[in-house]
């Protein structure tokens, strides 16, 4: 039998030396991230300033939030390609609610999140009830959301200039004295929430069960359809939040933005050790994956490496990070 890794299976396996090893592995997962950061810190002294570090976190926030939600989907062995444009549609809906309908701020934000949830719900129903493969269902949704965002916004950006406090959602600092934008706090808070859901609730447990062996899960009496819909809806909520955070950062809802974000988010998830085959994955891994991508991108930009080389280097770093992770798991 092959030695298979268990670090990414749900929760740790309790006490004993196994536990310690697993914890150590989690920490080692940070290794590539730390190596990268160290490299850039040496290459450019401006990298390690507080302002730049919080900038990296800020630039990771949107992709990170998307990636957190889609981790659940990928653990069920699904995929979610409507992340980017779905997020845009959520941002546009928030814009319409706050500016055209004049709803109060909390309701507008809620509306954006619900828009995301609705998109996820529709995805979930197509996939679980109509049995359309997740790739196709969410690819179709990616196009539909893109179109709807343009239609609803009248193909023009919606500005939040007249909505006081809206940009604060992303850019103010809740923690007094520390220059850490709220978007980053939101990312961290959502990481905790997602980790709790994945590790400690039925939804998390069943996500692993469905991704591990959908037929067996169904034979065990789990209502696979219902839980799948729940997972896509949850991912949709994260998508909606990402949309609001993005709009707050740009102080506008840009209807033509979004395509390409889905691949970045999925990449973060997979770099973080979640398997596209389903059944394996972790939230902390996803956060690390997102930070790795964010750090490399920022580091190269801060060094003003010519852009054509930047993508080559990012490609190589992704390869290396994943390969090192594979070696590490083999011990």
């Amino acid at each position: 039998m092959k030695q298979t890794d268990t670090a990414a299976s749900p929760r740790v396996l309790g006490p004993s030396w196994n536990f310690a090893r697993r914890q150590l592995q989690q920490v080692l997962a940070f290794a590539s991230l730390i190596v990268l950061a160290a490299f850039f810190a040496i290459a450019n002294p401006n990298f390690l300033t507080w302002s730049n570090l919080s900038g990296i976190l800020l630039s990771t926030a949107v992709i990170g939030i998307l990636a957190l939600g889609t981790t659940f989907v990928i653990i069920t062995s699904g995929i979610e390609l409507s992340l980017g444009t779905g997020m845009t549609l959520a941002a546009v809906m928030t814009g319409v609610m706050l500016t055209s309908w004049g709803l109060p701020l909390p309701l507008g934000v809620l509306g954006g999140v619900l828009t995301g949830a609705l998109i996820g719900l529709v995805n979930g129903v197509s996939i679980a009830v109509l049995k359309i493969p997740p790739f196709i269902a969410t690819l179709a949704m990616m196009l539909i959301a893109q179109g709807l965002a343009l239609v609803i916004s009248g193909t023009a950006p919606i500005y939040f200039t007249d909505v006081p406090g809206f940009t604060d959602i992303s850019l103010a600092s809740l923690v007094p004295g520390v220059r850490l934008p709220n978007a980053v706090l939101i990312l961290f808070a959502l990481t905790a929430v997602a980790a709790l859901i994945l590790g400690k609730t039925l939804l998390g447990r069943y996500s692993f069960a469905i991704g591990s062996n959908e037929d067996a899960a169904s034979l065990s009496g789990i209502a696979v359809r219902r839980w799948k819909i729940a997972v896509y809806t949850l991912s949709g909520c994260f998508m909606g939040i990402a949309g609001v955070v993005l709009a707050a950062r740009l102080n506008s809802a840009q209807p033509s933005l979004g395509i390409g974000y889905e691949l970045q988010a999925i990449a973060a998830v997979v770099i973080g050790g979640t398997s596209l085959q389903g059944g394996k994955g972790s939230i902390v891994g996803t956060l690390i994956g997102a930070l790795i991508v964010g750090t490399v991108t920022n580091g190269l930009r801060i060094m003003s490496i010519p852009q054509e080389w930047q993508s080559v280097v990012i490609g190589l770093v992704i390869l290396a990070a994943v390969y090192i992770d594979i070696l590490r798991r083999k011990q």
Partner: protein
Amino acid sequence: MYDLPAGGPVHDLLLRLEGISKGFPGVQALSDVHLELRAGEVHAVVGENGAGKSTLMKLLAGIHQRDAGSIEVGGREVEIENPRAAQELGISIIHQEFSLMPDLTIAENIYIGREPRRGPFTDDRRLNRMAADLFARLGIDLDPRARVGDLLVAQQQVVEIAKALSFDARVLIMDEPTAALTESETANLFRLIRDLRDQGTGVIYISHRLGELKEIADRITVLRDGEYVATLDAAGADLRHVVALMVGRELAANGGPPRTGDPSRPVVLEVRGLGSKGLLEDVSFELREGEILGFAGLVGAGRTEVARIVCGADRADRGTILLRGRPVKIRTPADAARLRIGYLSEDRKRFGLLLDQDVGFNILASSLAEHANPLGLMKDAQARRTAERYVESLRIRTPSLRTPVRSLSGGNQQKVILARWLAKDCDVLIFDEPTRGIDVGAKEEIYELLDSLAAEGKSIIMISSELPEVLRMAHRIAVMCEGRVTGVLDGAEADQRTVMDYATRAGAHGGIA
């Protein structure tokens, strides 16, 4: 909790199936079948591969819906629409094919859908304690927190059993629970079954190991070609008669005299000092031309591991493998195949079947290159003839070569994989549990096949947990215990006692109680 009359004496008849029919495209799996199950009885259901046993059970488990007939549970006619409904009716099933989730832990698998909770959260501590309690009650020695995907096949089987028992069901269905177990685990299982029976549980027991029936069954129902044949009292039944009912003719009981190794024949495969950290230590043996070398041992003794190393699926830390006296490097199963060494895995679903493909493809999977011209173009007509030949000679029950292998019965799937290795011309064949889930008649055919392969000069390693089979077939028997070869016995000198003696020689045995 169960749909049974409350109070008073429990209804004697737990389950009554009348006139059950079920068809699949191209196959009538069941027609007009009857079955009754009383409280406190073990009711064996037997029949050839493809007779419809599993299908009947799947109707009870809510996986398939019947075409005709009625199902009564506790005197009331019911529809069992899904697995959950079956659970709610107090019916619990051990499936023939594993239905576990490899990425979850043992405890999570057992209590899936019934997780203890604290507020909105799962209570894993209690979950693990429940599993530990269950294991203590059942006498199982497994860590509830271990990941199921890391378990041996036999251990997975034990988890399946534990899961089914954890429901405290009134009706317990066991579809070939012992196919992956050796004697001692089987004995343990029987003890559990008797306890349950004594508490009034009704057990439906399906097995191809007819010897077990005497030991455990109260009544036996025989199915043939999807039809009901007879129900007998186990106590008075003659097994030869049961077999005759199953196959519709008398089977000559042939065993022949014990075999013996022939030291004059050249050594084909030699394994020297094989070691693998924590699994194997200093494993050495020789395999001669035209010989069947049996491998016996308890579950987890390391037989499968030896086979996997020899066929290149795993790497050894130490040791050499010699083929006809020359050391060979076998890094992948493809290397082994090139050296004409073939391995049939004990886990047919994970390491054998190409479930999406049809029967023909599955038979040819190892010998595709032999059925292609040098440019890589397939010779389809020739390939079809080969596949047809094996469907015929192994009597694989399939509507056509194009039938998805998924829809075959378990035993017929096993035959398909056997055919795969027979179709490839190998000098050394390693069969890991080759008759797992195969009916008596077909077993005889497979034994004959192995004999004729050996007579052709092929060398065969036969790993089997069915000791009588090893004793009957092997020229010599290597016995393993805890990763070592504790003895190599000649076929003539070996008997059940000596083999078990060597199999436990290293002291306490592994894995399962």
